[in-house]
């Protein structure tokens, strides 16, 4: 299935070469979880902090169990803050 993968801040360089504006449409296995997709794109696990699926926070305990749906947007940040 196809999803939109968005990687921000220091994770940006893990996106495919054809990515634009921190986002790329990518092919992942049907029923893939966030953790599987994180592994597929070699995003360092210790730098995965904030994970949103369609803007909604996905807690760490659900990242390996909750399957994504086609056309979902998966957005990931390392630890960041501001204000």
């Amino acid at each position, binding site marked *: 299935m196809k999803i939109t993968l968005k990687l*921000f*801040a220091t994770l940006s360089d893990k996106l495919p070469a054809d990515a634009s*504006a921190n986002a790329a449409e990518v092919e992942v296995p049907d029923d893939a979880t966030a953790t599987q997709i994180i592994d597929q794109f070699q995003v360092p696990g210790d730098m995965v902090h*904030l994970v949103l699926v369609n803007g909604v*926070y996905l807690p760490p305990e659900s990242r390996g169990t909750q399957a994504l749906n086609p056309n979902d947007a998966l957005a990931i940040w390392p630890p960041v803050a501001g204000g």
Partner: protein
Amino acid sequence: MAWTKKVMRVNLTDGTIGEEPLNMEWARQYLGQRGLASKYLFEEIDPECDALGADNKLIYTTGPLTGTMASTGGRYSVVTKSPLTGTIACSNSGGFLGPEMKFAGWDMIIFEGKSPKPVYLYVRDGHAELVDASEIWGKSVWAADRILHTRHQDPQLRIACVGRSAEAGCLYSAIINDLHRAAGRSGVGTVMASKNLKALAVRGTRGLGGIKDPMRFIRATEEGKKVLREHAVTGQGLPTYGTQVLMNVINESGALPTRNMREVQFEGARNISGEAMHEPRKSDNRPNLTTNAACFACTIACGRIATIDQNHFAIENKPEYWRNSGGLEYEAAWAMGTDTGIDDLDAATYANFVCNEDGMDPITFGATVAAAMELYEEGVITTRETGGVEYKFGSAKALVHAVEAVAGGTGFGKDLGLGSKRLCEKYGRPELSMTVKSQEFPAYDPRGIQGMGLAYATSNRGACHLRGYTVASEILGIPEKTDPLVSKDKAGLVKAFQDATAVFDSSGLCLFTSFAWTLDNVAPQIDSACEGDWSAEKLVEVGERIWNLEREFNRLAGITGKGDTLPPRLLKEAAQTGPAKDKVAELDDMLPEYYELRGWSTDGNVSDETKQRLGL
């Protein structure tokens, strides 16, 4: 002791300057900086006084750790009554001015009265004099800074100054120190200019002594620095991307107020984000971001130094803006970008430069331009009022026109200098002002981050993110993740953030350390530096005392619990997109519990029992 225990009192009316001991009884109750100066203000002025009259006072104040080797120990604050909100105002700044005050031997400088002519205060250690400012009155901060450094022949002179906007009466003028650090919010610069006080120029050569237990202090500060260094946010995220890394986070979370808060997501957010600041521009192949920068003693270094494409329309014939200067922070990029619907990074950077150059709060400025744009698009104002410029959402030309007009106090800039509340009232549409207690919101929509709605509504200086930043928990998961779309249990979260923030703001430390530190990290640093016993528990009590004192000041100024609300747009118009779709700010679900947790009456007054408990 860390405090110098000396206060300078400057009577601008008769030109006298005196010295007095710091009230150490109050220091034990209010610590320093925000808390201690608020106590002085509370005791010394009538809260109902005219903020721009001679009866108001303006207090430059440091914390006990300002000027020490503690990481980020470079903060100072300016405390006064705000002309924008009528509330107590406390605006906090970094850079190097605060430590220089301490090195000259002063914890606090209290300005009172009004000078008959423009002056500036020159301080060199124990020497202080009021100097004629006719040469710098009417000049920008940057021009005045150059003149004073040349006149005093001292490159290490530290200067805080107001710009032309303050002289022209803009109600949200900031005090700028070190060219681009700002005591930014609530119009503290307007108060300074109203006293005919153009600048404070300080040189201190005495260093800082009196640390209670030097060896324990060294160990405590080193341990604190280690925590900051090893924490991913303060060790990597903030130095690399600055606060601007939030632009995409908040947009993806559906809580990015857009076009005067009509929407909660901005299609152009990525173009003005921290990530975009790193990328080479197509036009000149150079990035907006030149480097990061640090304030005194800071081991985080989140500051942004930026350049604008020399061929950008905003500066193409203005070589004075071709060099680098203080770049966009998240709140400024939001206000002058997202809230106005403008995704032109260099235009927003230019507006930021001008806000520094002539001393305006970029949050209130940008949000006021956004309100003007909605008034324009609604047909309430036309090019006749604006001076011929179309104030459409997304117009970078309107932004550039606006910032230059407010900086110089000319044309439509006089209207914009009122802030959005008075602007919208003037044109008969008060509901279009996105404010609490007359101060504009920053960059987090309370429909998508529920706790922030309560934090804004109850902030003692009007809408502000720096009085209770529950975004840390609700979005970023610091110290622990809570659901931003749920209002339940947010009252306690808001109170905890408010009280802890008051402690950081009273210590001399930067609030950004709180992304990695708790008060358990702060307490050993204060306890080893300052006389007395300072546990984390005691600091929480100090924070609560400060919050309630500020609340009491506001009540005596005539601002009551009725002001603890949000604009109708946020309470009645639901978000249309993103995770918060169909949600409004659920303030009514949180406010009664908050009052109860605070020990206040049901109409929001500090109860006698609470006053007694806190020694107010």
